[in-house]
């Protein structure tokens, strides 16, 4: 067992603790970026001028009328940028564009004494546009050959040969929608020039270091003149990995130009119309099976709808391609990937980061082919699960592949699946207008940033003279419970009660050059960095304690704030006393920690290597009931077994699994991004740009029965205290819901009906699917439904 994963006997990690800010959350005392405004004097408020065109050249921009509006202080335009007019790391996102690239693109920003003044000022700005041709759908972009970034190619074996000889070959085309993050807290930044002349930006960002970098390059100053702090976020989900930078830069630019604090908080409409979303994809596939239902070949072309700029589309595409296998052994694979350029928001990271988009393709293949092959969908899936010693299409061994089967059989047992299947069959036979179905789907998700360099993290741990401990790390808190876990890691490593450790907000002047809190890696990376820092301090204090206790420093242990020998029999020393001693001996009581994930290698051009430290596994069983009159459905029961290694914080992990699952269910069934694809005057406008039109799961979408268990004895060697990442993988357990809906729709038709189901599977989509299935049987009598 590695020292990183070894867990001491009385560890604070592993305790089911509530979120460290829970008491602040429930009392409204937890502060978010925009809550700082009322605590800041003389704040100016920012409002954007947004393009009413989907693609247009800006031929004139007249800001003077805005200054006639009472309370308008400043209009920010491209002329004001002292540094680089760019908001992205790919240098293809002008902060102030000369060409509107999507409907809602911010052209310039108005600063006002009040938000109302800024709004009215923005209305007064006069912009002349010369409309240009626009590409709104991914299909239009494909037809026009409009692509961006580097296309990728992933190959194993001989797809053509194996398709030619396969017993069964199917092909299909499938386009599926993206997803709006809809973090409850919209983008927000508050910037000011501090007493030292430095730029201080408070931002709701998952990536403070990159926000700092972009602010610095827009202002034309070195990074050390900019500090970014993130108190906490009201949700991120990937939507605050790249997207906050430009907004922070606007606030910072305004603050430097006016000398006053500037607050930029998007309202919901602005947030939805301006910020990037999960990529929708277009896919084409051919799949070959043998007579036993084993996949022998998969050939797929994935086209990601990248929107107007590159953003994170390349790594999202790479992860999609690396997850097209989901949990299945496919000997021959060919995947071509490319990124369409369309006149939409620039699509970006979203929980799963392309993984879901790759996996949905193979799940769709299996779901559609199962009836044609004569299998139940779940049985077909189980047959194809990876086994020990299998490797992925990109050449990484699937370590712990047996956990898929463990999770599967546990879900099957816990969920009483065999009995319920029989019950469902009876129910369906008795109910012509309502059908139920149960589907099981697995998840295998690779953990680490595909880009190896991002797999590093830093931490700063202070022990003060009174023995209290303050920890800082580079990760951000967006609700996922990272800070809770980090407190537990520090308390465990130092052998202290949790209350002795406090965590300070994430700041770039404490820990520099951090990676985004993303890729589910927050606890793995930052936890290891904190552990490293705490171990340095612990080792120094062991020296001091060894001297005091008259034992070898190597034998000193810390438990609950007491330093003692290998047993509790001998002398012991209180932590506070020890710290005081150490100070007087001039021992350094603080340390910077660092961690980099070992053993990763990735050839991005060849799409080969071992990009992931490990895989997270899980299996879900979902039961739905579909109403044949409307296509409306309920999620009756969900059973999940998920592998989080040895959990650092079980209550947090269960929360991540449940929340991820419901969010995934939202993507697959309910959340419906609709752009105006017509040639009318609103072409390219997002029609679902509000909570009233873009529906998130609410209580009515929660499974009526929801059982989540963590896979037991799941120690992960080589990860902090034996744990595994949990942020993203559970989202993809929601495929079980989509597949159950497909099966329930098919149940309206004769046995063996293969159902094509649109994504999202809204009630309307399910209705058309079941209507198609039903139309292949004689119109049944309108029997009493036995409701």
């Amino acid at each position, binding site marked *: 067992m590695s020292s990183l994963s070894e867990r001491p006997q009385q560890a604070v990690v592993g305790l089911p603790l509530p979120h460290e800010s829970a008491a602040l959350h429930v009392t409204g005392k937890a502060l978010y970026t925009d809550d700082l405004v009322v605590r800041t004097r003389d704040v100016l408020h920012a409002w954007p001028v947004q393009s009413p065109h989907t693609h247009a050249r800006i031929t004139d921009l007249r800001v003077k009328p805005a200054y006639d509006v009472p309370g308008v202080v400043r209009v920010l335009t491209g002329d004001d940028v002292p540094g680089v007019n760019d908001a992205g790391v790919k240098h293809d996102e002008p902060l102030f564009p000369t060409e509107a690239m999507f409907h809602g693109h911010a052209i310039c920003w108005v600063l006002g004494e009040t938000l109302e003044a800024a709004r009215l000022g923005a209305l007064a700005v006069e912009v002349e546009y010369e409309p240009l041709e626009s590409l709104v759908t991914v299909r239009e972009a494909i037809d026009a050959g409009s692509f961006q970034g580097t296309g990728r190619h992933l190959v194993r074996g001989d797809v053509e040969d194996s398709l030619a000889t396969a017993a069964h070959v199917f092909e299909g085309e499938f386009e599926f929608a993206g997803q709006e993050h809809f973090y409850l*807290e919209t983008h927000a930044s508050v910037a000011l020039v501090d007493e030292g002349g430095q730029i201080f930006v408070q931002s709701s960002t998952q990536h403070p270091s990159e926000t700092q970098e972009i602010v610095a390059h827009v202002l034309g100053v070195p990074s050390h003149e900019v500090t970014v702090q993130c108190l906490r976020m009201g949700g991120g989900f990937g939507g605050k990995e790249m997207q906050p930078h430009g907004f922070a830069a606007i606030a910072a630019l305004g603050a430097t130009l006016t000398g006053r604090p500037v607050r930029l908080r998007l309202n919901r409409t602005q947030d939805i119309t301006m910020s990037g979303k999960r990529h929708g994809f277009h896919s084409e596939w051919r799949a070959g099976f043998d007579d036993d239902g084993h996949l022998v070949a998969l050939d797929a072309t994935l086209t990601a709808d990248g929107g107007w700029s590159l953003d994170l589309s390349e790594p999202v595409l790479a992860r999609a391609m690396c997850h097209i296998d989901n949990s299945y052994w496919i000997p021959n694979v060919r995947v071509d990937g490319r990124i369409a350029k369309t006149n939409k928001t620039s699509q970006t990271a979203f929980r799963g980061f392309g993984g879901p988009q790759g996996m949905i393709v193979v799940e769709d293949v299996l779901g559609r082919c199962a009836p044609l092959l004569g299998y139940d969908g779940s049985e077909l899936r189980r047959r194809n699960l990876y086994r020990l010693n299998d490797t992925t299409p990109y050449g990484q061994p699937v370590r712990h592949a047996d956990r898929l089967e463990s999770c599967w059989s546990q879900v099957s047992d816990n969920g009483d699946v065999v009995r319920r299947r029989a019950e469902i069959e009876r129910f369906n036979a008795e109910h012509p207008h309502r059908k139920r179905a149960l589907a099981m789907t697995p998840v295998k998700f690779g953990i680490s940033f595909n880009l190896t360099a991002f797999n590093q993290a830093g931490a700063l741990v202070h022990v003060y003279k009174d023995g209290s401990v303050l920890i800082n790390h580079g990760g951000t808190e967006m609700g996922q419970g990272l800070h809770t876990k980090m407190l537990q890691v520090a308390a465990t490593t130092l052998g202290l009660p949790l209350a002795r450790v406090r965590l300070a907000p994430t700041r770039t002047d404490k820990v520099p050059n951090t990676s985004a809190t993303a890729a589910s890696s927050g606890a793995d990376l930052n936890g290891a960095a904190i552990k490293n820092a705490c171990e340095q301090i612990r080792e120094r204090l062991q020296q001091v304690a060894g001297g005091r206790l008259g034992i070898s420093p190597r034998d000193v242990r810390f438990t609950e704030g007491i330093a003692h020998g290998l047993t509790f029999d001998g002398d012991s020393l209180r932590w506070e006393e020890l710290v005081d001693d150490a100070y007087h001996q001039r021992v350094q009581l603080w340390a910077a920690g660092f961690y980099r994930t070992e053993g990763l290698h990735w050839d991005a051009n060849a799409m080969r290597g071992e990009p992931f430290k490990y895989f997270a596994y899980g299996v879900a069983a979902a039961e739905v009931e579909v109403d044949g009159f409307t296509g409306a459905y309920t999620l009756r029961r969900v059973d999940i077994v998920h592998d989080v290694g040895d959990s650092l914080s079980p*209550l947090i992990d269960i929360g991540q699994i449940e929340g991820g699952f419901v969010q995934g269910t939202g993507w697959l069934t309910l959340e419906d991004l609709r752009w105006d694809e017509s040639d009318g005057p609103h072409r390219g406008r997002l*029609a679902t740009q509000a909570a009233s039109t873009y529906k998130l799961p609410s209580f009515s979408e929660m499974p009526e029965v929801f059982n989540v268990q963590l896979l037991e004895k799941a120690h992960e060697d080589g990860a902090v205290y034996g744990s595994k990442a949990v942020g993203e993988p559970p989202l993809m357990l929601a495929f079980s819901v989509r597949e159950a809906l497909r099966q329930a729709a098919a149940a309206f038709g004769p046995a063996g009906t293969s159902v094509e189901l649109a994504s999202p599977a809204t009630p309307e989509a399910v209705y058309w699917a079941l209507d198609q299935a039903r139309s292949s049987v004689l119109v049944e009598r309108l029997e009493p*439904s036995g409701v």
Partner: protein
Amino acid sequence: MSTTTTQAPSITVNGEQITIGDVTVHTNALDWLRDRGLTGAKEGCAEGECGACSVLVARPGTDAPTEWTAVNACLLPVGSLDGQEVITSEGLGSPAELHPVQQEIAVRGGSQCGYCTPGFVCSMAAEFYRSTRTTSNGHCDHEHGPNGFDLHSLSGNLCRCTGYRPIRDAAYALGEPAVDDALAARRSAPPPPPAATAIAVDGAEFHRPASLADVLELLAESPEAQIVAGSTDVGVEVNIRGVRAPLIVAVDRLDELREFTFGPDEVRIGAALTLSEIERLLAGRVPLLAQMFPQFASRLIRNGATIGGNLGTASPIGDAPPALLALDASLVLASRRGERVVPLADYFTGYRETLKAADELIRTIVVPLPLEPLTAFHKIAKRRFDDISSVAIGYAVDVEDGVVRRARIGLGGVAATPLRAVATEQALIGRPWTERTVREAAAVMAAEGTPMDDHRASASYRSAMLGQSLLRFYSEGVDA
């Protein structure tokens, strides 16, 4: 800013009386609270869909003098709370002394990012304090806890993180308020009476007249006035579309608009009663409406939205019109010129246009008795809780000796106005109530109206849903 008021309007927030002060009349209660440092309540959507801004207001109860009523602060003009008592998440408890609701949510992992949490806390607290919630009643299903907690009370609150299970568990774990709970005790005394309010700031005015006569006078003089009750519709216009009416007139607490009588010949429902109040007052006596209420927006909206408002905005996708059309309801319209009664079936004249003159106010909704024996309300939407209808259908049918004697079918979402499915009704009346009749009528019904394609549903789905709805109605009826 120049402010003239009859007396300094103020709100009692968490027990402290705070002068509303120099804010525009369009400032909503949420922004006002936040500007005063009470940043617990959040803006998540600014249109009453997410509930992050939920706060408690002491409102008249039907079963106790006062009920703590959760509303969306983002939709309310702050002036509309003049004289009222408001409790926010900060006022319920502190980190050192959590309220039982806060305690349950905190320890069960009911908060992740925490942004929606103060709103959930307030909505849950309202249900915790609901005077008719009995912890001993046996009715318990997946939407009702063993402690009498109705999950629909949280239907207007969105959480993007948790997946809701721990929040539900927290809700179902709540006991009864402690004997010394001050907010529970507060219910036994009446809420503050409505204050007559007049605020004028920067040329815009907010008025809450003291009587209906005063309102009608004002309307006669200024027919362009924007009437508000719960502001659940107008608030969206203000927040999302930047509408700034120069004169706002609040009518929601006028006694004359809050009548309620049941029988023997009719039910009279005051236009300014909220959907929640009507639901409690009817107590299931109009099954069609009882079926509609849980599907009408969310509890947070129903706590503010009035029946008169839903008819006044005349939205083609409002949920009340199809139900009330099926019930053959009439409206009493009042103006300084007098009152008149208009059948609802004649009321809608075009897209958001009605027979109501600019100086008229809906005073009462009248539903004739007896009710038809077979009724149903079908709502087609993407989401079961808190969604806007793609199609909504209200049915009221009388079958005697196997023959359809009367049939009224109200439709929403399939035309520029709510309408009666007259052709379908004709295809049913006088014919035997059989599958054959219903199938033929369903084909007629599928051709009713002129449904559109939009982001909620395709035109073809809307049409299909009309026909399917009648088949479903028959299927359910046969079963009953």
